[in-house]
């Protein structure tokens, strides 16, 4: 059986059996978590290795009527992010989560199934279904602490996100009504005869719907609230995968269904770039004002999404490479920051900037990891964030968006202002004696693993870039993608 199918099925089945095992024995539960994780890692590597040239998997031998899965380099990169973040987060949270631990792990597995489905499917309606699967589990994960705050923020998230989903569904239905098919390749072919105005309306609905899930300013408001209240390991997945899978879906739709010529013609590329600039400038300005580190990192995530949006909306090869690389890098960097913060919270219940004062001397190596990731996310060399920002700026200049390129540098400066504030607090000595619960190795190892990737990908960017360099081939030239999907 095809391994790509199992990428979606395995976490779903695991979640199901975990739910049963939880009733009987903890030992069985944890061994299943570990075993399934290892198999999953193996499967992911298998599929990622096999992603170029793209492979199509049709399920149930129904031909075009059935559900098609397609793995190209763009999906493979997301599978790579899943491989890196999911494994580290699960290992981390086995020890970290104290309340509702079983539910947390089960829901995380469901969420991963949804995200894996989103990045693999080549069918518009399935995309929506998987999006809802991942969103639903996200709402539950946000509320999992069961405090007043977490339930409130989960509710806000639910309402806002459903508002977005409504427009995505509306656009999907309209597309089906107009073209009579849900297969992305066929839609793209049918779309050639659809009037310009209707096509643009559908496109704007998609952009608006996904814009809420991505968190573009001013659709971002739910995001910092939900970060503040949800468990920190979930924040890693949320900023690394949930947001990113939405932007994946949007980019996939725009470039494959509509095609880059239409995007240029309708002017959406200009709007996207401008929106990206607006997003990160406002998000950086607001991040400076935060006193809670979760909120600060949340705003920083929104800002980074702004950079990614610019990269992906430039409509040229370098932009797609830079934007995709920044997706990967941001997942790693923000993951590191959140995991370090998670350890601080675990040992001292510290998640305000005031609370972390002097921790640089109590946890020297952890704080160093934090500093590395912070400098990386600011975009200073020689870390990975610098390389992807360099690529994005270069692409922006190549596409003629000088103002966007310039503002990315302004944004770099603005992000330094607040990350430096945190770092200085970290290294300010204090007399305060605080109770420390010693973090053990299972918390520290995943953190160090992600932190070392920040340095590794900065010094040897060719490692991930060998995969990422193939991405533009099937996005910019959608006829190639369509040909493969239709089995030509």
């Amino acid at each position, binding site marked *: 059986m095809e391994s790509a199918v199992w990428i979606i099925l395995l976490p779903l089945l695991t979640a199901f059996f975990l739910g049963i095992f939880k009733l009987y024995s903890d030992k069985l539960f944890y061994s299943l978590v570990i075993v399934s994780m290892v198999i999953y890692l193996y499967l992911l590597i298998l599929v990622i290795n096999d992603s170029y040239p793209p492979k199509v998997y049709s399920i149930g031998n129904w031909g075009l009527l059935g559900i098609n899965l397609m793995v190209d380099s763009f999906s493979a990169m997301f599978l790579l992010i899943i491989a890196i973040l999911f494994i580290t987060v699960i290992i981390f949270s086995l020890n970290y989560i104290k309340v509702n631990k079983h539910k947390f792990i089960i829901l995380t597995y469901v969420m991963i199934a949804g995200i894996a489905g989103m990045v693999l499917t080549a069918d518009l309606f399935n995309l929506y279904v998987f999006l809802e699967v991942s969103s639903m589990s996200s709402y539950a994960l946000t509320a999992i602490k069961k405090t007043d705050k977490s339930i409130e923020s989960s*509710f806000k998230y639910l309402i806002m996100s459903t508002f977005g989903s409504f427009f995505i569904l509306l656009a999907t239905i309209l597309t089906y009504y107009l073209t009579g098919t849900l297969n992305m390749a066929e839609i793209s072919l049918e779309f050639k005869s659809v009037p310009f105005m209707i096509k643009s309306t559908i496109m*704007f609905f998609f952009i608006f719907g996904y814009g809420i899930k991505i968190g573009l300013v001013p659709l971002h408001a739910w995001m910092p609230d939900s970060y503040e209240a949800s468990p920190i390991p979930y924040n890693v997945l949320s900023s690394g995968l949930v947001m990113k899978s939405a932007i994946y879906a949007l980019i996939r739709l725009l470039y494959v269904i509509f095609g880059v010529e239409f995007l240029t013609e309708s002017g959406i590329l200009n709007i996207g770039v401008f929106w990206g600039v607006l997003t990160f400038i406002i998000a950086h300005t607001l991040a400076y004002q935060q006193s809670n580190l979760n909120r600060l990192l949340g705003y920083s995530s929104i800002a980074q999404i702004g950079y990614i949006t610019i990269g992906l909306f430039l409509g040229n090869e370098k932009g797609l490479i830079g934007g995709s690389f920044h997706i990967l890098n941001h997942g790693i960097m923000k993951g590191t920051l959140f995991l370090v913060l998670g350890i601080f919270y675990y040992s001292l219940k510290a998640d305000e900037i005031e609370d972390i004062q002097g921790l640089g001397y109590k946890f020297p190596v952890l704080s160093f990891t934090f500093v590395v990731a912070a400098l990386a996310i600011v975009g200073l060399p020689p870390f990975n964030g610098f390389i992807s920002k360099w690529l994005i700026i270069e692409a922006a200049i190549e596409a003629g968006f000088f103002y966007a390129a310039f503002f990315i540098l302004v944004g770099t400066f603005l992000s330094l202002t607040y990350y430096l504030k945190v770092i200085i607090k970290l290294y300010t000595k204090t007399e305060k004696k605080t109770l420390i619960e010693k973090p053990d190795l299972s918390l520290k190892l995943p953190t160090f693993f992600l932190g070392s990737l920040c340095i590794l990908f900065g010094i040897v960017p060719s490692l991930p870039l060998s995969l990422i360099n193939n991405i533009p081939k099937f996005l910019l030239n959608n006829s190639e993608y369509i040909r493969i999907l239709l089995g030509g």
Partner: protein
Amino acid sequence: MITPGFLYLAGALFLFLAINNKIKYIISFLITTGALIITFYLTPGYSLEINFLNYTLIPFRVDDISKLTGLIFTLSGLAAVFYSINISSRSNLQLIFLFIGSSLTVVFTGDLFILYIFWELMEISSSFLIITVSDLTKKTGYYFFLMQAVGGLSLLWGVFLNHSATGSLSLNAIEAGIPFFMIAVGIKLAFIGLHTWMPQTYSKVPFYVTVVLSIYTTKVGVYVMYRLLSGINILAYAGLISALFGIVMALRQNQVRKLLSYSIITQVGYMIIGISIGSAAGITGAFFHLINHILYKTVLFMVAGVVIYTTGKENLEDLGILGSKLPITSLATLVAFMAISGVPFFNGYMSKTIIKEALQEPVLIWGLNLMSFGTSLMFLKFIYYAFFQNSNINLNRKPTISMQLGLGFLTIIMLLIGINPFLLENLTNIDVDINYFDIKLMLSGIQPFLWSVIVFILLKKYLVKEYRRFIYYDIYREMAKIFVKIGYKLSIYHNGKLSKYLLWATTTLIILLSLLI
């Protein structure tokens, strides 16, 4: 091939192994002297290429000027590391190594990409050095880092503009983005208006950090200015104005290290003038002056350090500790004073003479004389407090041997260059063709000094007095305040009400749909 910069960077890693002081000494000694020896035996013309992303980069390239700068950097690195080795903690020593290593890499780089990366690394390592070194320097470090980051980012923007215009990352093909390079270099070398980071940083951090920072930060700026902006004549006048501003400010200071910081601005003015005229003689003069300046200014900062170390205070009155109580330090002070004032037979004289001979415009020549006059005036104040004022300050503790070693080492080199100015020329195969010991040259060299002595004696009561500290209007702080205020106003709108969020979303939808039409 091991480059000197790389050796220092590796040294920063090796210092993790230093479990006790002995190993720390051995590693530091091996790295610093090793780098000096390697630099000494570099052959100009050598270059190294690597492939990174889609670019061909030249991380290492040697020519006469870079070898000269590299030599003085490794030499003073040796002195500075030994000056501070007993006082600095291990992690700070690592940062110092990282800092020196990146400055050396900047000096030997052959392309803009590597230049930017190590320029930025310099800024990161020095900022973290300032931040972690003491409890009192957090805000200074914040200010320093942000200011330097502006410089770094404008360098980056210049690199992008130039790359998109010429398609190359080579250092020799600068066509576009020159204003941004100017901002970047201007911040690094503390040009007037962009200098605000320097006096406060240099006067607040522990004294050994000042010694290290003052050697490299501004001088790397000078070197990069030579690479990217040499021969822009108009900048010579800018350098002159900046230098005169430095003199005016320095004369007002009561704190030793603030006086020395403003004096750096003046001395860098000489180098700016030399580089801006763009002739071979001017550039050589500028770089010889860079060497001499590093020597005497480091010695002076080391002297200030000894005063702080022994008395715990650092006002000009506390310089009275010099004299009979600290013989070696006093001797070094006198030599450095003679050198910085441009008295013949001391090293400052030679480079000032070369720059002066290279000038043609009368305004600049007179400006240069004025600068020499002002410089000796401000250091006469220094000397007056050190030797001519009765004081009854006592030594709290003796300076360490390693401090005196670092100090003495540089003083001897300074004397050597002063007595035999051709030493530098022979070392680097640069021929200047000036007879330094010509009577006419010597007279014109010593004139500003003599004038300044006369003026100092006449106007002593105006010069030697406590000036009121005045609060400077800092435009950058005002801009920061506006940014924070705007952010605060914005953050108030985000009050957690769901109805508001939905309103924003609906508005966005309407705007998006209106774009359709």
